[in-house]
């Protein structure tokens, strides 16, 4: 046996396949085709979890993705998943499930004390109680989040693989029930490219749990024939176990396909060709939403005990899984649909009593049939109380008054072990609403239905408010034909016979959003509206009394509609109760906005393959391998890996950097400068263009010469800097900062294309086309002469800021004499493929000078010693050229980008923050970067802030600390004393010039 409650026959389960599983460590058996929920119910297990706030025992309430209660921690270890719904987990061998939010156990949970104190936990309790003192909230929050938690997140990396795929189609059909299948069939026959996505393991939708007929035969025969026909069409793709979770702009939808979830965690090496899940990004020309409908609970006193479930769910467990949800059922309904459950349960041998809120129940239609079948039908009756701690064991029913707000008779106790409730059905309008479509409240079914579409989308069947099978088939077929036609496809030949199903007139629903109990609402018994968030009718009424009368405020104040189920079973009931509290009707109250995702989507699927090494591209230079072998530590600069420093055995960072700096100052160092941005600029208007984008003039620059340029945004602030060389007439090479290269190119292109299309200029990125070795130091020219005997290195003819072509180590090279270190320095550019050869040649030939590779940190010290700025470190988007000490560089003879902003009054103020040097009184003290510069340190704030330290290093060259800082009116303060405020003291400093080493530039020009 696979459980005491399994029927001897029937259902769509595979009775030949017995499956072992555990729940909270206890072993059970189920059958192939079971969900975890159906297998638990077959074993008589209703208690599956504890509620979020009150820790009340909770059971399985639904049979689908809307489940608010039966949330499961699925599998232990790396595969663990919190908050999965037992109702949609397909059973597999050795599945291990655990309940959540209880301690020490599900049966005996200490947190249940919250339930007894429930009256002290109204809506907004946490906000009201833990407001003061403000600083303590993070402490309260920690405790509260631990007590009111759901599942636990995995603590180790996800071992599974996920994929993301794009797909395009003419018609996307969401839902594989009767409407969806009919739509796909019609569109497919017309020749449109169709994708049908259905979230269940089998197509058929609601028909999987129904006993209706199509064309006089069991409906599943029609499903089988339709699926077979669709499978034969090359233009149709059927996606099972696939949830359309998001509907975005321009008919772009997200689909989550669960590829191997139903097989359970796969051992390493098995099934590696298949991902766990696929995220499909679908662009559809037309969308047909046939997503069905979700049943509403009724809001009555203590409607949350295990054993209380939706009537449609009880029927699904019975008909689809062959499981009796109990032995004695009370059905509580306000509409006809629950009678199908009543009749099916009765036929399966369950004792059934129906309490129907409608006064004419039992007089005609399906309720009369129920009477005929021997079912007791109590008209105008309600459940007014339930009993049973871990499972419902009895209810009290009573007649209620026509207004529906009070009892109209005595109570009667009925023993039962299951309560099946139906408050009517909500069309699954989530995707339609996400697509920006407008909803309309349909009084006939007391639910929101799709109204005006905002995109190329149509709803069909129950999703459109057509709850009868004939309507579903008809609307689906029509929607499929229309969608195909809208994309240019029309079926040829004789139209096939349309499937036929019987429709029976239904008695009207009696919407009663809040069922009265034995005591006033909120004073005995809890009328749950949102089961997952433990929000009750009393909470909704309290919110309304406290003026949270907008639905959006109600949602946030009571948390109704939040959580993993996003209020699928609660939203309309909450609106109904709020509407009554406001004495308005539901359309006047409105709905909250539906947002993606429809059901939770794993982060793994969203990330896909973009994880680990593939999360972001890594850029390395042609010499990277040499740096790795040399033991370099690396720094990330944008996506580039740059050597940070090259520690020798036993050497710390500071020792290594000092050694590298001194080697450059004393002999020669070598730096991999490949990553600097390089933009090749050509065309007859290139000089004119440079004049526009740089603050200084370019028309006088001769071929073979270089110039430093500052680039501003139109607001006048420094945006990038670098050296640009004139390589020939109409040909320039612009250098940018490493991390600014892409932005600078985009900036140049934007102006060329949109503002100055008449300029004949082309810009091409050549950053990766050239490898660059920079050799710097007093021995650099000797070394270069040795490897490049044809080069003219005479400082008179090849001075600082010039460029020439010639072979270096036999490799064709461009050699720039430029410097970011203050030493005579050469940047040797060779085609990338020769980068390593050049590097090795320089290292070998440089041995006699003890050539020392240096990294970015030594470079930063060297440039700071010379007062060279680093854009982005010493500037921050609020600095003008003048602020940075480049005032005299700015041309007055031409217009350029950003120029007009520089003449604004604010830019002329003498108290702007200006770049200066700082020297600490104690030469050994290295200031922290970012520290505040103040006039006088005080024990307590406020201290007027004058600026901050932008760069700070130990300078091995002069044997003391140095710093650059931006300081209000800094130029005028040179020579004066200020303080740098640390946490507990002020550090006395003197404001100085920014150049600390070789201010005359003898080394540079030597």
């Amino acid at each position: 046996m696979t459980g005491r409650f399994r029927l001897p026959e029937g259902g769509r389960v595979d009775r030949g396949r017995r499956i072992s599983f555990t729940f909270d460590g206890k072993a059970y058996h189920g059958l192939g085709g079971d969900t975890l929920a159906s297998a638990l119910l077959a074993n008589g297990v209703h208690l599956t979890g504890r509620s979020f706030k009150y820790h009340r025992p909770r059971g399985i309430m639904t049979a689908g993705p809307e489940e608010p209660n039966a949330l499961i921690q699925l599998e232990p270890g790396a595969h663990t998943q919190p908050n999965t719904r037992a109702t949609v987990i397909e059973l597999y061998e050795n599945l291990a499930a655990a309940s959540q939010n209880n301690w020490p156990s599900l049966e005996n949970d200490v947190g249940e004390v919250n339930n007894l104190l429930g009256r002290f936990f109204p809506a907004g309790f946490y906000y009201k109680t833990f407001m003061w003192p403000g600083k303590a909230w993070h402490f309260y929050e920690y405790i509260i989040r631990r007590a009111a938690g759901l599942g636990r997140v995995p603590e180790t990396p996800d071992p599974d693989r996920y994929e993301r795929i794009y797909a395009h189609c003419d018609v996307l059909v969401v839902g594989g029930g009767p409407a969806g299948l009919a739509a796909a069939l019609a569109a497919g026959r017309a020749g449109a490219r169709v994708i049908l996505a259905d979230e269940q393991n089998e197509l058929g939708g609601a028909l999987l749990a129904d006993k209706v007929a199509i064309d006089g035969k069991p409906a599943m025969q029609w499903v089988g024939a339709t699926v077979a026909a669709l499978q034969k069409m090359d233009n149709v793709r059927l996606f099972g176990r696939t949830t359309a979770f998001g509907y975005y702009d321009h008919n772009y939808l997200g689909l989550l396909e669960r590829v191997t979830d139903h097989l359970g965690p796969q051992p390493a090496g098995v099934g590696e060709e298949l991902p766990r899940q696929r995220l499909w990004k679908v662009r559809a020309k037309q969308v047909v939403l046939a997503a069905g409908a979700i049943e509403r609970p009724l809001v009555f006193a203590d409607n949350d005990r295990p054993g209380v479930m939706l009537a449609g769910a009880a029927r699904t467990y019975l008909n689809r899984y062959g499981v009796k949800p109990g032995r004695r059922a009370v059905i509580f309904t306000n509409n006809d649909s629950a009678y199908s459950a009543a009749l099916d349960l009765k036929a399966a041998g369950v004792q059934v009593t129906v309490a129907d809120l409608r006064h004419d129940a039992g007089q005609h239609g399906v309720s009369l049939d129920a009477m005929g079948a021997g079912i007791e039908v109590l008209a105008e009756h309600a459940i007014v109380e339930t009993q049973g701690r871990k499972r419902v064991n009895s209810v009290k029913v009573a007649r209620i008054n026509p207004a529906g707000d009070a009892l109209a008779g005595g109570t009667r106790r009925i023993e039962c072990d299951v309560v099946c409730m139906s408050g009517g059905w909500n069309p699954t309008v989530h995707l339609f609403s996400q697509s920006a479509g407008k909803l309309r409240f349909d009084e006939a079914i007391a639910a929101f239905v799709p109204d005006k579409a905002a995109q190329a989308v149509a709803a069909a069947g129950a999703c459109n408010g057509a709850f009868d099978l004939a309507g579903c088939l008809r609307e689906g077929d029509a929607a499929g034909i229309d969608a195909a036609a809208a994309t240019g496809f029309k079926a040829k030949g004789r139209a096939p016979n349309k499937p036929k199903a019987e429709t029976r007139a239904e008695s009207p629903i009696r919407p009663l959003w809040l069922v009265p109990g034995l005591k006033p609402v909120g004073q005995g018994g809890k009328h749950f509206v949102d089961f997952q968030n433990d929000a009750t009718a009393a909470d909704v009424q309290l919110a309304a009394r406290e003026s949270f009368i907008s639905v959006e405020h109600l949602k946030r104040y009571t948390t109704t509609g939040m959580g993993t189920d996003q209020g699928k079973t609660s939203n309309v009931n909450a609106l109904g109760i709020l509407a009554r509290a406001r004495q308005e009707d539901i359309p006047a109250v409105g709905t909250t906005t539906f947002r993606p995702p429809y059901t939770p989507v794993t982060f793994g699927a969203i990330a896909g393959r973009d994880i680990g090494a593939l999360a972001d591209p890594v850029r390395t230079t042609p010499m990277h391998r040499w740096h790795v072998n040399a033991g370099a530590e690396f720094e990330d600069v944008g996506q580039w890996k740059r050597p940070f420093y090259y520690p020798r055995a036993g050497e710390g960072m500071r020792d290594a950097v000092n050694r590298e700096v001194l080697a450059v100052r004393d002999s020669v160092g070598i730096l991999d400068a490949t990553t600097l941005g390089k933009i090749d600029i050509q065309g007859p208007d290139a000089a004119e263009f440079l004049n526009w984008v740089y603050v200084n003039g370019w028309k006088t620059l001769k071929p073979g010469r270089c110039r430093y340029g500052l680039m501003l945004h139109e607001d006048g602030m420094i945006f990038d800097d670098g050296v640009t060389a004139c390589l020939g007439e109409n040909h320039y090479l612009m250098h940018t900062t490493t991390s600014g290269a892409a932005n600078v190119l985009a900036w140049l292109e934007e102006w060329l294309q949109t503002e100055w299309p008449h300029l004949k200029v082309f810009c091409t990125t050549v950053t990766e086309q050239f490898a660059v070795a920079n050799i710097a130091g007093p021995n650099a020219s000797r070394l270069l002469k040795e490897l490049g005997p044809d080069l003219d290195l005479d400082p008179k003819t090849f001075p600082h800021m010039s460029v020439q072509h010639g072979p270096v180590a036999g490799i064709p090279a461009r050699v720039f004499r430029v410097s970011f270190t203050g030493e005579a320095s050469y940047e040797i550019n060779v085609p990338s493929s020769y980068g390593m050869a050049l590097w090795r040649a320089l290292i070998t030939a440089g041995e006699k000078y003890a050539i020392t590779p240096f990294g970015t940190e030594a470079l930063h010290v060297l440039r700071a010693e010379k007062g060279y700025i680093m854009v982005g470190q010493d500037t921050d988007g609020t600095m003008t050229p003048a602020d940075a000490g480049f005032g005299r560089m700015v041309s007055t003879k031409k217009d350029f980008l950003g120029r007009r902003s520089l003449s604004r009054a604010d830019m002329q103020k003498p108290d702007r923050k200006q770049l200066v040097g700082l020297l600490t009184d104690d030469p050994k003290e290295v200031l922290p970067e970012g520290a505040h510069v103040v006039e006088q340190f005080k024990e307590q704030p406020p201290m007027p802030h004058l600026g901050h330290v932008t760069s700070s290093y130990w300078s091995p060259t002069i044997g003391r600390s140095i710093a650059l800082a931006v300081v209000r009116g800094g130029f005028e303060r040179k020579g004066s004393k200020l303080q740098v405020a640390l946490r507990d003291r002020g550090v006395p400093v003197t404001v100085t010039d920014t150049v600390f080493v070789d201010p005359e530039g003898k080394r540079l020009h030597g």
Partner: protein
Amino acid sequence: MLLITCPYCGPRSEEEFAYGGEGHIARPADTDGLSDDEWADYLFMRTNPKGVHYERWVHAHGCRRWFNAVRDTATNEFLAFYRVDEKKPEIDR
């Protein structure tokens, strides 16, 4: 995720593009002749209509070309795509 028709490449997904803000704002020829307010207007002030909006896009991860588009900001529907050198279409709705 918008579907954007690059005038040079055809319809492509939004993630290939970068947004360039409001279109048809020419850089003033004589910047010295502008008051600070007029310069600030050029620099910072943009319309923010509910409805028809003329705007710039660049096919950043494609042909890298700039072009113009007309979009209804209320519905995200594109009403026109045109090259930088094409005339601004007059669209009323």
